[in-house]
Protein backbone atom coordinates (compact mmCIF):
# COMPACT_ATOMS: atom_id res chain seq x y z
CA UNK A 1 0.00 0.00 0.00
CA UNK A 2 1.37 3.30 -0.96
CA UNK A 3 0.56 6.55 0.58
CA UNK A 4 2.35 9.76 0.38
CA UNK A 5 2.65 12.05 3.32
CA UNK A 6 3.04 15.01 1.13
CA UNK A 7 -0.55 15.44 0.05
CA UNK A 8 0.15 18.56 -1.87
CA UNK A 9 2.37 17.20 -4.54
CA UNK A 10 1.23 14.31 -6.66
CA UNK A 11 2.73 12.78 -9.68
CA UNK A 12 -0.40 11.34 -11.17
CA UNK A 13 -1.46 13.32 -14.21
CA UNK A 14 -5.10 12.65 -13.47
CA UNK A 15 -5.04 14.78 -10.40
CA UNK A 16 -3.26 17.65 -12.07
CA UNK A 17 -5.15 20.88 -12.06
CA UNK A 18 -3.23 22.32 -14.96
CA UNK A 19 -1.65 20.41 -17.77
CA UNK A 20 0.14 21.39 -20.95
CA UNK A 21 1.43 19.22 -23.74
CA UNK A 22 3.60 20.40 -26.58
CA UNK A 23 2.60 23.99 -26.05
CA UNK A 24 3.78 26.33 -28.77
CA UNK A 25 3.38 30.00 -29.58
CA UNK A 26 4.86 31.48 -32.72
CA UNK A 27 4.92 35.01 -34.06
CA UNK A 28 5.69 36.06 -37.58
CA UNK A 29 6.79 33.74 -40.32
CA UNK A 30 9.69 32.90 -42.55
CA UNK A 31 12.77 34.83 -41.62
CA UNK A 32 10.96 36.68 -38.92
CA UNK A 33 9.59 33.65 -37.15
CA UNK A 34 9.83 33.94 -33.40
CA UNK A 35 9.22 30.86 -31.31
CA UNK A 36 8.18 32.46 -28.09
CA UNK A 37 7.13 29.14 -26.57
CA UNK A 38 8.59 26.06 -28.17
CA UNK A 39 7.19 22.76 -27.01
CA UNK A 40 6.42 22.97 -23.30
CA UNK A 41 5.05 20.15 -21.20
CA UNK A 42 3.84 20.84 -17.72
CA UNK A 43 1.80 19.27 -14.98
CA UNK A 44 0.71 21.20 -11.95
CA UNK A 45 -0.97 19.38 -9.10
CA UNK A 46 -3.54 20.92 -6.79
CA UNK A 47 -2.04 23.10 -4.09
CA UNK A 48 1.36 23.24 -5.74
CA UNK A 49 3.37 26.39 -6.15
CA UNK A 50 5.34 26.34 -9.36
CA UNK A 51 7.81 29.08 -10.23
CA UNK A 52 9.19 29.67 -13.72
CA UNK A 53 12.43 31.58 -14.04
CA UNK A 54 14.46 32.58 -17.03
CA UNK A 55 16.24 35.42 -18.76
CA UNK A 56 14.27 38.22 -20.41
CA UNK A 57 12.70 37.18 -23.64
CA UNK A 58 12.74 33.49 -22.85
CA UNK A 59 8.98 33.33 -23.25
CA UNK A 60 7.90 32.79 -19.69
CA UNK A 61 5.31 35.56 -19.70
CA UNK A 62 3.93 34.28 -22.98
CA UNK A 63 3.74 30.81 -21.48
CA UNK A 64 1.80 32.11 -18.54
CA UNK A 65 -0.69 33.85 -20.78
CA UNK A 66 -1.23 30.62 -22.65
CA UNK A 67 -1.74 28.64 -19.48
CA UNK A 68 -3.97 31.28 -17.95
CA UNK A 69 -6.38 31.49 -20.90
CA UNK A 70 -5.36 35.00 -21.82
CA UNK A 71 -3.95 34.02 -25.18
CA UNK A 72 -4.34 31.21 -27.65
CA UNK A 73 -1.45 28.87 -28.44
CA UNK A 74 -0.21 28.22 -31.94
CA UNK A 75 -0.08 24.55 -31.15
CA UNK A 76 -0.30 22.02 -28.36
CA UNK A 77 -2.88 21.47 -25.67
CA UNK A 78 -3.74 23.06 -22.39
CA UNK A 79 -5.98 21.35 -19.88
CA UNK A 80 -7.44 23.23 -16.96
CA UNK A 81 -9.40 21.27 -14.41
CA UNK A 82 -9.78 18.50 -16.90
CA UNK A 83 -11.11 20.72 -19.67
CA UNK A 84 -9.21 21.57 -22.78
CA UNK A 85 -9.02 25.31 -23.15
CA UNK A 86 -6.83 25.90 -26.14
CA UNK A 87 -9.55 25.49 -28.72
CA UNK A 88 -12.77 26.46 -27.03
CA UNK A 89 -14.82 29.43 -28.19
CA UNK A 90 -14.56 32.93 -26.84
CA UNK A 91 -17.59 32.60 -24.62
CA UNK A 92 -16.36 29.45 -22.95
CA UNK A 93 -12.93 30.96 -22.57
CA UNK A 94 -14.43 33.98 -20.86
CA UNK A 95 -16.28 31.67 -18.52
CA UNK A 96 -12.98 30.00 -17.66
CA UNK A 97 -11.44 33.34 -16.92
CA UNK A 98 -14.06 34.26 -14.43
CA UNK A 99 -14.39 30.97 -12.67
CA UNK A 100 -11.21 28.95 -12.87
CA UNK A 101 -8.43 31.47 -13.33
CA UNK A 102 -7.10 34.39 -11.35
CA UNK A 103 -4.41 36.54 -12.91
CA UNK A 104 -1.96 38.90 -11.26
CA UNK A 105 0.03 41.23 -13.50
CA UNK A 106 3.35 42.93 -13.07
CA UNK A 107 1.79 46.31 -13.80
CA UNK A 108 -1.12 45.60 -11.42
CA UNK A 109 -3.65 46.73 -14.05
CA UNK A 110 -6.10 48.21 -11.61
CA UNK A 111 -8.72 50.64 -12.88
CA UNK A 112 -7.57 54.10 -11.90
CA UNK A 113 -10.97 55.50 -11.24
CA UNK A 114 -12.18 52.69 -9.00
CA UNK A 115 -11.39 52.30 -5.33
CA UNK A 116 -9.66 49.19 -4.04
CA UNK A 117 -12.98 47.71 -3.07
CA UNK A 118 -14.60 48.52 -6.42
CA UNK A 119 -11.68 47.01 -8.28
CA UNK A 120 -12.18 43.74 -6.46
CA UNK A 121 -15.93 43.91 -6.89
CA UNK A 122 -15.50 44.23 -10.63
CA UNK A 123 -14.26 40.68 -10.90
CA UNK A 124 -17.27 39.33 -9.05
CA UNK A 125 -19.63 41.48 -11.11
CA UNK A 126 -18.14 40.06 -14.30
CA UNK A 127 -19.04 36.64 -12.97
CA UNK A 128 -22.63 37.72 -12.58
CA UNK A 129 -22.77 38.06 -8.83
CA UNK A 130 -25.19 40.53 -7.33
CA UNK A 131 -23.68 43.84 -6.24
CA UNK A 132 -24.28 42.96 -2.62
CA UNK A 133 -22.56 39.59 -2.83
CA UNK A 134 -19.71 41.22 -4.71
CA UNK A 135 -19.33 43.80 -1.99
CA UNK A 136 -19.26 41.22 0.73
CA UNK A 137 -16.69 39.14 -1.06
CA UNK A 138 -14.52 42.21 -1.65
CA UNK A 139 -14.63 43.07 2.03
CA UNK A 140 -13.57 39.54 2.97
CA UNK A 141 -10.69 39.57 0.54
CA UNK A 142 -9.47 42.98 1.62
CA UNK A 143 -9.39 41.62 5.14
CA UNK A 144 -7.46 38.61 3.94
CA UNK A 145 -4.74 40.68 2.27
CA UNK A 146 -4.56 43.06 5.18
CA UNK A 147 -5.95 46.15 3.46
CA UNK A 148 -9.35 46.47 5.10
CA UNK A 149 -8.53 50.00 6.18
CA UNK A 150 -7.73 51.03 2.62
CA UNK A 151 -10.90 49.79 1.02
CA UNK A 152 -12.02 53.21 -0.17
CA UNK A 153 -8.67 54.36 -1.47
CA UNK A 154 -7.97 54.94 -5.14
CA UNK A 155 -4.96 53.14 -6.59
CA UNK A 156 -3.12 56.43 -6.89
CA UNK A 157 -3.25 56.69 -3.11
CA UNK A 158 -1.82 53.23 -2.56
CA UNK A 159 1.80 52.13 -2.59
CA UNK A 160 3.01 49.62 -5.15
CA UNK A 161 2.89 46.75 -2.73
CA UNK A 162 -0.62 47.65 -1.63
CA UNK A 163 -1.76 47.88 -5.21
CA UNK A 164 -0.42 44.45 -5.95
CA UNK A 165 -2.14 43.04 -2.91
CA UNK A 166 -5.41 44.51 -4.14
CA UNK A 167 -4.71 42.86 -7.47
CA UNK A 168 -4.11 39.55 -5.75
CA UNK A 169 -7.37 39.96 -3.85
CA UNK A 170 -9.09 40.60 -7.15
CA UNK A 171 -7.57 37.46 -8.60
CA UNK A 172 -8.94 35.45 -5.68
CA UNK A 173 -12.39 36.93 -6.01
CA UNK A 174 -14.04 34.08 -7.86
CA UNK A 175 -12.25 31.27 -6.02
CA UNK A 176 -10.11 30.27 -8.95
CA UNK A 177 -8.57 26.87 -9.34
CA UNK A 178 -5.23 28.39 -10.23
CA UNK A 179 -3.76 31.81 -9.58
CA UNK A 180 -1.29 32.90 -12.24
CA UNK A 181 1.16 35.65 -11.38
CA UNK A 182 3.32 37.33 -14.02
CA UNK A 183 6.34 38.96 -12.38
CA UNK A 184 4.22 39.99 -9.41
CA UNK A 185 7.10 41.74 -7.66
CA UNK A 186 8.69 43.18 -10.79
CA UNK A 187 7.62 46.73 -9.95
CA UNK A 188 8.04 46.50 -6.20
CA UNK A 189 10.79 47.35 -3.76
CA UNK A 190 12.10 44.73 -1.40
CA UNK A 191 9.80 45.55 1.50
CA UNK A 192 6.76 45.27 -0.73
CA UNK A 193 8.21 42.07 -2.14
CA UNK A 194 8.27 40.59 1.32
CA UNK A 195 4.63 41.51 1.80
CA UNK A 196 3.67 39.76 -1.40
CA UNK A 197 5.85 36.84 -0.44
CA UNK A 198 4.03 36.44 2.84
CA UNK A 199 0.72 36.57 1.04
CA UNK A 200 1.77 33.90 -1.41
CA UNK A 201 2.99 31.71 1.42
CA UNK A 202 -0.34 32.05 3.19
CA UNK A 203 -2.16 31.19 0.01
CA UNK A 204 0.06 28.19 -0.40
CA UNK A 205 -0.74 27.05 3.10
CA UNK A 206 -4.43 27.38 2.36
CA UNK A 207 -4.00 25.01 -0.55
CA UNK A 208 -4.20 27.46 -3.44
CA UNK A 209 -2.47 26.34 -6.61
CA UNK A 210 -0.03 28.98 -7.80
CA UNK A 211 1.93 29.36 -10.99
CA UNK A 212 4.35 32.24 -10.80
CA UNK A 213 6.69 33.67 -13.38
CA UNK A 214 9.39 35.65 -11.71
CA UNK A 215 12.82 37.18 -11.84
CA UNK A 216 12.91 37.44 -8.12
CA UNK A 217 14.95 34.70 -6.49
CA UNK A 218 13.10 35.15 -3.24
CA UNK A 219 9.77 34.35 -4.82
CA UNK A 220 11.30 31.51 -6.76
CA UNK A 221 12.88 30.04 -3.68
CA UNK A 222 9.51 29.85 -1.97
CA UNK A 223 8.05 27.59 -4.64
CA UNK A 224 7.67 23.84 -4.45
CA UNK A 225 9.01 23.45 -7.94
CA UNK A 226 11.28 25.76 -9.81
CA UNK A 227 11.44 25.49 -13.55
CA UNK A 228 14.10 27.22 -15.61
CA UNK A 229 13.14 28.34 -19.03
CA UNK A 230 15.31 29.37 -21.91
CA UNK A 231 14.48 30.17 -25.53
CA UNK A 232 10.89 29.09 -25.18
CA UNK A 233 11.53 25.69 -23.60
CA UNK A 234 12.02 24.24 -20.17
CA UNK A 235 15.62 23.36 -19.47
CA UNK A 236 15.69 22.50 -15.84
CA UNK A 237 13.41 21.64 -13.00
CA UNK A 238 14.23 21.64 -9.33
CA UNK A 239 12.33 20.58 -6.30
CA UNK A 240 13.53 22.92 -3.67
CA UNK A 241 12.29 21.11 -0.63
CA UNK A 242 15.16 19.56 1.21
CA UNK A 243 18.69 20.67 0.65
CA UNK A 244 21.78 21.32 2.59
CA UNK A 245 20.44 23.17 5.56
CA UNK A 246 22.43 24.08 8.58
CA UNK A 247 25.11 25.90 6.74
CA UNK A 248 23.57 29.31 6.87
CA UNK A 249 26.16 30.55 9.25
CA UNK A 250 28.90 29.71 6.85
CA UNK A 251 27.66 32.32 4.49
CA UNK A 252 28.64 35.17 6.70
CA UNK A 253 31.90 33.95 8.09
CA UNK A 254 30.66 31.84 10.92
CA UNK A 255 32.48 28.92 9.52
CA UNK A 256 33.10 26.14 11.82
Amino acid at each position, binding site marked *: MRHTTDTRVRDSADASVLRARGLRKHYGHGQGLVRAVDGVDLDVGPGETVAVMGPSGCGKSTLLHLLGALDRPSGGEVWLAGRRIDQIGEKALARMRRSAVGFVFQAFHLMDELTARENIELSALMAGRSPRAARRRAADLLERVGLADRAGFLPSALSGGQRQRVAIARALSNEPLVVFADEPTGNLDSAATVDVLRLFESLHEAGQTLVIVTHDE*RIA*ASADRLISMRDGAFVDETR*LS*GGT*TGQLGALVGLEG
Partner: protein
Amino acid sequence: MQQEVVLAMLAKEPSHGYELRARLRQALGPLGEALNPGHVYVTLTRLEKAGLVTSERAEGLADRQDRKMYALTPDGQQRVAEWLAEVRWPKPDLAEFHLKLVAAAAAGLADPLSIVDAQRRELLRRLRDAQRAALAEPEGSDAALLLEGIVLRLQADLRWLEACEQNWTGRRRRS
Protein backbone atom coordinates in the same frame (compact mmCIF):
# COMPACT_ATOMS: atom_id res chain seq x y z
CA MET B 1 43.76 31.14 -4.21
CA GLN B 2 42.68 27.61 -4.09
CA GLN B 3 45.09 24.97 -5.25
CA GLU B 4 42.39 23.40 -7.30
CA VAL B 5 42.26 26.45 -9.53
CA VAL B 6 45.83 25.93 -10.63
CA LEU B 7 45.17 22.24 -11.07
CA ALA B 8 42.20 22.93 -13.26
CA MET B 9 44.26 25.29 -15.37
CA LEU B 10 46.47 22.40 -16.28
CA ALA B 11 43.59 20.14 -17.18
CA LYS B 12 43.48 21.05 -20.80
CA GLU B 13 47.14 20.38 -21.55
CA PRO B 14 50.51 20.62 -19.90
CA SER B 15 51.94 24.10 -19.96
CA HIS B 16 54.85 26.18 -18.89
CA GLY B 17 54.78 28.12 -15.72
CA TYR B 18 54.70 31.45 -17.45
CA GLU B 19 51.88 30.27 -19.66
CA LEU B 20 49.84 29.38 -16.58
CA ARG B 21 50.43 32.74 -15.08
CA ALA B 22 49.45 34.43 -18.30
CA ARG B 23 46.24 32.51 -18.56
CA LEU B 24 45.35 33.32 -14.99
CA ARG B 25 46.09 36.98 -15.54
CA GLN B 26 43.96 37.03 -18.63
CA ALA B 27 41.02 35.32 -16.96
CA LEU B 28 41.12 37.69 -14.02
CA GLY B 29 41.55 40.87 -16.03
CA PRO B 30 42.27 43.93 -13.87
CA LEU B 31 41.89 41.85 -10.74
CA GLY B 32 44.87 39.89 -11.92
CA GLU B 33 47.12 42.84 -11.13
CA ALA B 34 46.76 41.93 -7.50
CA LEU B 35 47.85 38.41 -8.17
CA ASN B 36 51.11 37.70 -6.49
CA PRO B 37 53.33 36.22 -9.17
CA GLY B 38 55.15 34.08 -6.76
CA HIS B 39 51.95 32.60 -5.38
CA VAL B 40 51.36 30.51 -8.46
CA TYR B 41 54.76 28.90 -8.27
CA VAL B 42 54.41 28.24 -4.55
CA THR B 43 51.13 26.49 -5.28
CA LEU B 44 52.68 24.53 -8.11
CA THR B 45 55.45 23.35 -5.79
CA ARG B 46 52.92 22.32 -3.19
CA LEU B 47 50.88 20.47 -5.77
CA GLU B 48 53.95 18.72 -7.01
CA LYS B 49 54.78 17.63 -3.48
CA ALA B 50 51.21 16.34 -3.10
CA GLY B 51 51.69 14.26 -6.21
CA LEU B 52 48.97 15.98 -8.19
CA VAL B 53 51.33 17.62 -10.68
CA THR B 54 54.57 16.70 -12.38
CA SER B 55 57.16 19.07 -13.74
CA GLU B 56 59.70 18.71 -16.45
CA ARG B 57 62.64 20.76 -17.23
CA ALA B 58 62.66 22.06 -20.76
CA GLU B 59 65.56 21.08 -22.91
CA GLY B 60 68.30 23.56 -23.01
CA LEU B 61 66.58 26.15 -20.80
CA ALA B 62 67.62 27.30 -17.36
CA ASP B 63 66.20 25.52 -14.38
CA ARG B 64 63.68 28.19 -13.50
CA GLN B 65 60.16 27.61 -12.47
CA ASP B 66 58.59 29.68 -15.13
CA ARG B 67 60.28 27.70 -17.79
CA LYS B 68 59.36 24.36 -16.40
CA MET B 69 56.65 22.27 -18.02
CA TYR B 70 53.90 21.20 -15.65
CA ALA B 71 51.35 18.45 -16.22
CA LEU B 72 48.60 16.74 -14.26
CA THR B 73 48.97 13.32 -12.76
CA PRO B 74 46.02 10.95 -12.78
CA ASP B 75 45.43 11.86 -9.14
CA GLY B 76 45.47 15.46 -10.17
CA GLN B 77 42.87 14.85 -12.84
CA GLN B 78 40.61 13.12 -10.41
CA ARG B 79 40.95 15.96 -7.96
CA VAL B 80 39.98 18.39 -10.69
CA ALA B 81 36.88 16.38 -11.54
CA GLU B 82 35.84 16.28 -7.90
CA TRP B 83 36.39 19.97 -7.51
CA LEU B 84 34.30 20.80 -10.53
CA ALA B 85 31.35 18.93 -9.11
CA GLU B 86 31.54 20.56 -5.72
CA VAL B 87 28.91 23.08 -4.70
CA ARG B 88 30.52 24.46 -1.59
CA TRP B 89 30.01 28.13 -1.10
CA PRO B 90 31.97 28.80 2.02
CA LYS B 91 32.63 32.46 1.47
CA PRO B 92 31.74 34.80 -1.29
CA ASP B 93 34.62 33.89 -3.53
CA LEU B 94 33.61 35.01 -6.93
CA ALA B 95 37.06 34.71 -8.37
CA GLU B 96 37.25 31.04 -7.60
CA PHE B 97 33.94 30.22 -9.17
CA HIS B 98 34.73 32.36 -12.14
CA LEU B 99 37.99 30.57 -12.70
CA LYS B 100 36.29 27.27 -12.24
CA LEU B 101 34.06 28.05 -15.16
CA VAL B 102 36.93 29.29 -17.29
CA ALA B 103 38.95 26.20 -16.60
CA ALA B 104 36.08 23.85 -17.20
CA ALA B 105 35.35 25.43 -20.53
CA ALA B 106 38.97 25.50 -21.62
CA ALA B 107 39.57 21.91 -20.69
CA GLY B 108 36.28 20.72 -22.02
CA LEU B 109 35.83 18.80 -18.80
CA ALA B 110 32.38 19.97 -17.98
CA ASP B 111 29.75 22.26 -19.33
CA PRO B 112 30.07 25.58 -17.54
CA LEU B 113 26.33 26.00 -17.79
CA SER B 114 25.62 22.88 -15.83
CA ILE B 115 28.10 24.01 -13.21
CA VAL B 116 26.26 27.27 -12.95
CA ASP B 117 22.90 25.50 -12.79
CA ALA B 118 24.04 23.20 -10.03
CA GLN B 119 25.39 26.07 -8.01
CA ARG B 120 22.20 28.02 -8.54
CA ARG B 121 20.12 25.22 -7.32
CA GLU B 122 22.15 24.99 -4.18
CA LEU B 123 21.96 28.67 -3.50
CA LEU B 124 18.24 28.66 -4.08
CA ARG B 125 17.80 25.99 -1.47
CA ARG B 126 19.79 28.02 0.97
CA LEU B 127 17.81 31.08 0.09
CA ARG B 128 14.61 29.20 0.78
CA ASP B 129 15.85 28.08 4.15
CA ALA B 130 17.11 31.50 5.10
CA GLN B 131 13.87 33.09 3.95
CA ARG B 132 11.76 30.67 5.89
CA ALA B 133 13.83 31.28 8.94
CA ALA B 134 13.57 35.01 8.47
CA LEU B 135 9.79 34.95 8.06
CA ALA B 136 9.43 32.75 11.12
CA GLU B 137 11.27 35.21 13.32
CA PRO B 138 9.18 37.63 15.34
CA GLU B 139 9.20 41.13 14.02
CA GLY B 140 12.15 43.26 14.95
CA SER B 141 14.30 40.47 16.25
CA ASP B 142 18.04 40.84 15.71
CA ALA B 143 18.30 37.42 14.20
CA ALA B 144 15.78 38.47 11.64
CA LEU B 145 18.08 41.25 10.55
CA LEU B 146 21.00 38.89 10.17
CA LEU B 147 18.89 36.43 8.25
CA GLU B 148 17.72 39.20 6.00
CA GLY B 149 21.33 40.02 5.32
CA ILE B 150 21.97 36.43 4.36
CA VAL B 151 18.96 36.40 2.10
CA LEU B 152 20.02 39.55 0.34
CA ARG B 153 23.55 38.31 -0.18
CA LEU B 154 22.28 35.05 -1.58
CA GLN B 155 20.02 36.99 -3.82
CA ALA B 156 22.92 39.02 -5.08
CA ASP B 157 24.97 35.92 -5.68
CA LEU B 158 22.12 34.33 -7.53
CA ARG B 159 21.90 37.36 -9.73
CA TRP B 160 25.50 37.03 -10.57
CA LEU B 161 25.02 33.40 -11.36
CA GLU B 162 22.30 34.34 -13.74
CA ALA B 163 24.68 36.74 -15.41
CA CYS B 164 27.21 33.94 -15.63
CA GLU B 165 24.65 31.76 -17.26
CA GLN B 166 23.80 34.38 -19.82
CA ASN B 167 27.41 35.07 -20.54
CA TRP B 168 28.39 31.45 -20.99
CA THR B 169 25.35 30.75 -23.11
CA GLY B 170 26.40 33.58 -25.37
CA ARG B 171 29.90 32.31 -25.55
CA ARG B 172 28.74 28.90 -26.55
CA ARG B 173 26.56 30.38 -29.23
CA ARG B 174 29.41 32.33 -30.63
CA SER B 175 31.86 29.47 -30.74
